[in-house]
Each structure stands twice: as C-alpha cells, then as structure tokens.
C-alpha cells in the first residue's frame, strides 16, 4: 500500500500522518468537529423541534408566542449560508471559546449551523406521530413528561434516527468549510493542499476518506432505524 502510494501518489505520502498537515491530524479534526457539534447542535435542535411541535396550533402546549419565538429563531439561522455564519458568529465564538480560529472555535458555528436544520427535521418527525396516540395517552392520565418521552420521542424514534443520519452527513459536509477559520479537517486538506496546489491525488484521497465517513454513518443509521421500527408499514 505504502509502496503503491509512494509510486503513484508521492504528494499524498509527503503530507505524512502526524504533524499539522498529517492525514491522521485531519481525520481526528473532522471526527472531533463532527462529534461535538453534532452533540451540541442536535441537543439544541431537538429542544427547538420539540418546542415548535408542542406550541404549534393543536399541540399539547399550544402557545402562539413561544411558537413564533422558536420558529423565527430556527428560520433565521437556517437562512444564513454557513460560510457567512462562520464569520458572522465570530464575536460570539470569541466569548464562548475565547478564540475565533481553530478546531474548537469551529464548534460554535458548526453547532449553530446544524441545529436549525435538525430542528426542522425533528419537527417533521414528531408531527408524524398520530394525534390519536397523544389523546389515548392523555385518556389514561399521562403526564407531560410521559407524553414527551413515552409517546413523542419513542413513537418517532425510528424517524428521529433517520433524520439524525441525514443531519450528520450534512454536518460532515459543513466541517469541510470550517477550514476557512483554520479548523483543519479533511475538507481543508482537500482544498488547501489538494485543489489550491493543483494536487489532484491529495484531493482524491481526502474526498475518498470523507466518503467513507459518510458511508459508515449512513449504514449505521439505516440499520438502527430499521431495528428500532415496529410500526405497521
């Protein structure tokens, strides 16, 4: 393998494994950014998604005011192109992580970039839970938390896994842009050391590695969604 790469893609090997430009470093950076921003972004997205569904007309906590608050915030962040959000959010990033550049600094815009997307998907997944199930649960005296956890989140779990998969894949795409604020990652390798140096081999390898990430996420997601689904087809 190494011999093969040495022979046909010497520049790929020259980047090395460790060190600032190394493949190992880029891979870890991509995983790091994906994991943490997925965690923060999805928690935020889940909260907003639930909030929107509950306060919407006909929801169990119908409330025009809060619905508008949730809905408008989500719409606002969804409307900002990510590459602009990276720069736009910099002052906030400064406050939260004390720096505006680097891998950790990218977590703030990544989380904020992915949460509205996830919130909308969660909204769709939860809206798909039959109102009748809510009524039936209420008729046996279910509490608010029962309705959230036992009805909404449990009944929509397979759908939630599906939308989480889509969101993760889209997030991996966003991490590629985070190179713009010095966050590194495979996307940065592909652009800075591949494309901008006209080194097709590096671009190809970086793309290939991203594809593997996406594939793994997709396969695991599909599997989980299927295993967790007991609904009538």
């Amino acid at each position, binding site marked *: 393998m190494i011999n093969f790469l040495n022979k046909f893609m010497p520049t790929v090997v020259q980047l090395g494994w460790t060190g600032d430009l190394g493949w190992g470093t880029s891979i870890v950076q991509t995983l790091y950014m994906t994991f943490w921003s997925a965690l923060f972004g999805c928690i935020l997205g889940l909260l907003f998604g639930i909030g929107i569904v509950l306060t919407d007309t006909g929801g169990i906590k119908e409330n025009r005011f809060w619905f508008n608050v949730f809905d408008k915030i989500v719409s606002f962040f969804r409307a900002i192109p990510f590459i602009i959000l990276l720069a736009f959010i910099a002052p906030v990033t400064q406050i939260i992580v004390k720096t505006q550049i680097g891998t950790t600094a990218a977590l703030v815009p990544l989380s904020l970039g992915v949460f509205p997307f996830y919130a909308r998907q969660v909204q769709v997944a939860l809206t798909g839970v039959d109102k009748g199930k809510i009524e039936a649960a209420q008729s*046996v005296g279910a509490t608010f938390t*029962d309705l959230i956890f036992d009805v909404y989140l449990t009944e929509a779990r397979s759908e939630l896994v599906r939308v989480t998969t889509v969101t993760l894949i889209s997030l991996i795409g966003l991490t590629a842009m985070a190179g713009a604020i010095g966050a590194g990652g495979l996307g940065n390798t592909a652009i800075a050391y591949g494309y901008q140096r006209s080194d097709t081999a590096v671009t190809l390898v970086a793309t290939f590695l991203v594809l593997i990430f996406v594939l793994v996420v997709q396969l695991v997601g599909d599997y989980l969604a299927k295993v967790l689904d007991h609904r009538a*087809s």
Partner: protein
Amino acid sequence: MAEKVIELKNISVFFKQAEKTVKAVNDVSIEVEKGDIFGVVGYSGAGKSTLVRTINLLQKPTAGEVVVNGKTLFSKNGNKETLIEGKELRQARREIGMIFQHFNLLEEKTVSQNVEFALKHSSLKEKQIASRAQELLKLVGLETKGSSYPAQLSGGQQQRVAIARALANNPEILISDEATSALDPKNTVQILDLLKNLNKKLGLTVVLITHEMDAVKRIAKKVAVMSSGKIIERGNLIDIFVNAKQPLTQELVGIQSQIQKAEQLLAQSTENSDLSTQTALHLTYTGNSVKDPVMTKLYADYGVQTSIIFGNVDVLRDEPVGTLFVIVSGKEENRQKAIEYLKSSGIKVSKIDLSKGVAQ
C-alpha cells in the same frame, strides 16, 4: 332510580373558524346511569364525538357542566369557570377509560408495555404492574400476545389491547368512540360482545358512539340520536326503534327504507284490485308481546284475509322486533275490528294510505 355516573348539563362546544363559529355541540344535556350501555348515534359531523370527548375533557366545552361520578370536572356559566387541572385532571381521566376508532396504541411498545403504560402512575409496584397487565390481557383474551408489537396483531386484537389499556385503572366508565368502525363485521361483533360482557361482569358503564346502527342494536340499552350538534331523540333502545318520531331517526333505524320498499311492493300488488275492501297496515311487534296466533285469528274471528307483502325481524339486545307490511281484505267493519284486535294484542299498527303513503 339508579345512580348517575355521567351528567353533561347544557354542554356547548363552539369552534371559531376564520369568520364564523361552528356550533359542534349546541346546548346538549345527557345523563348516563351506572351500568348503562348508552348509545349515541348520528351521521359523521353530527357532533357526537365532540360531545363525549367533553366527558374526560379531551375536549374542553365552551359552556355547560361536566359531572362524572358526582365530581364536577368542568363548569362554566357566564364568566365563572371551574376546570380541574394537572394532577386532579389526570386522576379523573384514569377513572374514565376510552377506546378509539384507530386503536391509538403505541406502536413502539409491546402489547404488555402498552397496558403497563396506563399503570405508570398507579400505586402498584413494578411487579404488580406486570401481573395486573397480564390479568387485563387475559380478560380480553390476549394473554399469549404480551410480547408482540401492535403491528403484528389484527385490528380486532389491537382493539382488545386498547380495551385492556382503557380498563387498567379500574374505571367505572368506558367511552367507545367509533371503536368498531374500522373493523370487519366479524371483529365488530366480537368487540361489541366483549363490551357487553364487561358491562355485565364488571358493571362497567359504556358510552358507545357510532354511526353504525347495528352496533347500537346489538348492545345498547339507551340511545340518543344526534344531528347538527343537538340531540333530536332519545329513549330506550326498543322505543327508539319501534316509535321513532324524527325522520332522521327513522332513517337511521332503517324504518324509512323498509317503508319505501313496502310501498313499492304494495303498489304493485294492489294495482288491479279494489282498494275499498283493502287496508294496508304496517305492524310492529316486539319479542314476547305477541302470544296469540294472530294471523289465524284474524281470519277465524274477524273474517278478514291477510297477505304479507314484506317482513323483517331485527334483534335488539337479544330481543326480536318484527316488522310486517300486510294487506288486510274484507268488509270495512270487520277490518276495523281486526285492527282493534291487533292493537289490543300488543302490536303497533299504522295504516298506510295506498295512494299517499304512510298515515297514522
């Protein structure tokens, strides 16, 4: 006088839509006694579902009073409103079971878990909850299906699970909201018989909402007919069937279609005969009210001949109700006496004017 378990007093439910107010339920009162099977019938959109949803406050009324088991759950007169909430509301709801047209089971929970879910806030310990769930599944004949998921069961079985869930907290009342409307005829009959059985065995009070007259005929003791948010007729099952006054009730119970059919047949069979010696009658009799061999007596004692044009027997809660359309021929005087005799033997008689239709 039996104890009243449900009292809805002057209930109104209005929905505000863009420009107009829809009066889904308009000043309706009903009382349901302990151990009753109370049928509410009417076409879709009559407001029957909205009305009974006020019993457990899944639907909050616009005005009126809801009293269940002697406890006021809601009341609103003018601007003064009382409404139980939170824990109190949840506890009240547990005392009122409800089943639905589409079963509304939690599909990501097993059959046992569905029943156990209803017991989550009961005073029972985890083990007791499991055994109580098993006991309930046995009651509905599904003791072997505990670990199945609802999607693996037939519609009838799913509705049984829903019944087990509804009965988990030992409610005295069960509301059935079109519970058999999505089932095939065989499962419909089984579910209805199960409800009837539970009514007998547990003294369960059942409120049965349906647009299927057959469901009411099979198990209801009392019936209320709803149309456009109002109750237009109410009474005991057999009264409603035999003495339906409102055209809509007659239509629902199928009398109208029978009369129409009979009229056609009567018109055909009397086409070339002398109307002055004939009277067409619509006879209705219930189960045990007729003991005499009536037709024979009409001929032997009154000298009139009776030909049956059309007949039908309905079974209402195991009691047969017969409908006959006959032509009686003979002398005017004899026919009059014959009719008196029929009335005196417990048969409801209405004359049918052969040229104009039905007349009393």
